[in-house]
């Protein structure tokens, strides 16, 4: 336990020293300010206006949080490997599982703090323009962003373990981000429909991407309009109902946070140094 905590503290320290978290919080706060100002100028100072601003923030989150999680996760083990410190660490009386878990937990805490800071500063800036009226939705978005970060970090760790260097890990992380965030919507739906037009393949297409799961959960909570939910979200809500959809999507997020990490641990344990 003491060893895992030591690794976790070191990872937390490294994460705060890296520029990624600061850049994330700063970008988030600035975009939030810009969104609020645009909303304010449009004269929409109602609760609906606040919701639109937060919806804009969610879109920003769906772009930035996966990138942050994947890049930070991918640089952990591969970075230690590049620096030669992985051998020093694993020659201590700790298991590869402890090392992986300590690093993962450290990153999760760091990214959660960065998200809280980013959303916190953004929320504060937004209240100067539009009075904060819907804290519930805002809090839910923070939770969803944190869940997305947790699953992306897990995937990032898997990428890190299978990469023999930091450069390769970064390239794979950015490729994964490109596929999950930018390509997936069109690609997966197209593929699902071409393989089978059944509801099962569409459902699998949603659950196969945590970014999509978070997007649908966020929109569902904010504005359960079938047009805004998109084809996958609309299908889920219509076929399974809102409650079942929420449970299914949340379970998918949990699985995405756990399964890549378990796979990373299995592979890491079998690797030679």
């Amino acid at each position, binding site marked *: 336990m003491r060893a895992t905590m030591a690794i976790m503290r070191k990872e937390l320290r490294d994460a705060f020293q890296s520029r990624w978290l600061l850049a994330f919080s700063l970008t988030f706060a600035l975009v939030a300010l810009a969104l609020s100002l645009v909303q304010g100028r449009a004269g929409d100072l109602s609760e609906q206006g606040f919701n639109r601003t937060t919806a804009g923030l969610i879109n920003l989150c769906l772009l930035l949080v996966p990138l942050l999680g994947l890049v930070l996760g991918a640089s952990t083990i591969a970075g230690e490997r590049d620096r030669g410190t992985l051998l020093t660490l*694993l020659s201590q009386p700790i298991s590869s599982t402890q090392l992986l878990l300590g690093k993962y937990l450290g990153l999760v805490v760091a990214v959660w703090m960065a998200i809280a800071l980013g959303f916190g500063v953004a929320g504060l800036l937004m209240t100067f323009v539009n009075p904060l009226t819907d804290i519930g939705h805002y809090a839910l978005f923070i939770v969803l962003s944190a869940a997305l970060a947790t699953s992306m970090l897990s995937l990032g760790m898997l990428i890190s373990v299978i990469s023999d260097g930091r450069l390769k890990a970064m390239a794979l992380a950015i490729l994964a981000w490109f596929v999950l965030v930018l390509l997936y919507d069109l690609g997966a739906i197209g593929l699902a429909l071409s393989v089978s037009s059944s509801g099962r393949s569409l459902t699998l297409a949603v659950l196969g991407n945590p970014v999509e799961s978070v997007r649908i959960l966020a929109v569902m909570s904010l504005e359960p309009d079938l047009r805004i939910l998109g084809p996958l979200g609309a299908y889920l809500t219509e076929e399974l109902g809102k409650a079942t959809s929420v449970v299914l999507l949340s379970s998918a997020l949990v699985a995405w946070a756990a399964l890549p990490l378990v796979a990373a641990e299995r592979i890491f344990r*079998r690797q030679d140094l």
Partner: protein
Amino acid sequence: MLSIRGVTKRYGSRVTALDGVSMALDAGKVTAVIGANGAGKTTLIKCIVGLVRFEGEITVGGKNVAKDGRGVRRLIGYMPQDPAFHSDLSVRETAAFYADLKSAPLVRARELVESVGLAAHEEKKVGELSGGMRQRLALAVTLLADPPLLVLDEPASGLDITARLELRKLVQDQRKEGKSILLSTHWLEDVPYVADDALVLNEGKTVFLGPATELAGAAAPSSRLFLRLNGQVAEAAPLIKGLTNGAVEDTGDWLVVSCPATRKARIVEALVGAGIGILDFRVEEAPVDAAILDLQKQAGGKR
């Protein structure tokens, strides 16, 4: 303390880094693992520490490396060939971090940083340390949990003669404390002074396993001694020939003596004893590979 039985390590289907290596190391004893680059020394050490998977069996203090790697590493202080630490941590933070990983008290970390002479540099970042200082820090980290088995991979590489002597003293001190030590080295001539036993590897195979004193005779590493004398070459040459069977060549400026590495000091001592003035001298050591090839020829593939 350490038992290695039939350890084989293959990388893919073509590369066999270790081929059926066996040895035992008792408590309070020192074994030197000798071999040229690529002989399998580091691979053997990585097997012992549980950093690579292997065929065969290794136990440390009765614990099986393959089954309880973490438990085994509690008993081992391992110093890698090129110790790498996080360059952003200070010396003090590094020692404290590894004390946490080894469940060692923080006060022990402070004591060791002091004892390896880094107290004045404890706030320096590891990235700012010289190679020698980093080696000292690695030594402090190795000793943190007061392990009964020390595994030192090429600890003398990159060290100057003073540091090598300090290292030799450290090995002797640790042995006196009852620790078992396994060290890999290129320095064949050091072996009889620091080790009880020697294991010589070539291409992953054992070519010699036995008392270190026997190795000196068996391997007979050679040296070339260059002597600039105070004009008494005619007297010196027969004296040297009487001490060694090697060749003595007079090049005019230098008297070049080819001799077993273990005899070179005796030659200098004899010349001084005979009142022959030595104005200057230098030594060229034959590479360890040559001595190992000799051993392999002597073994004739029987080992």
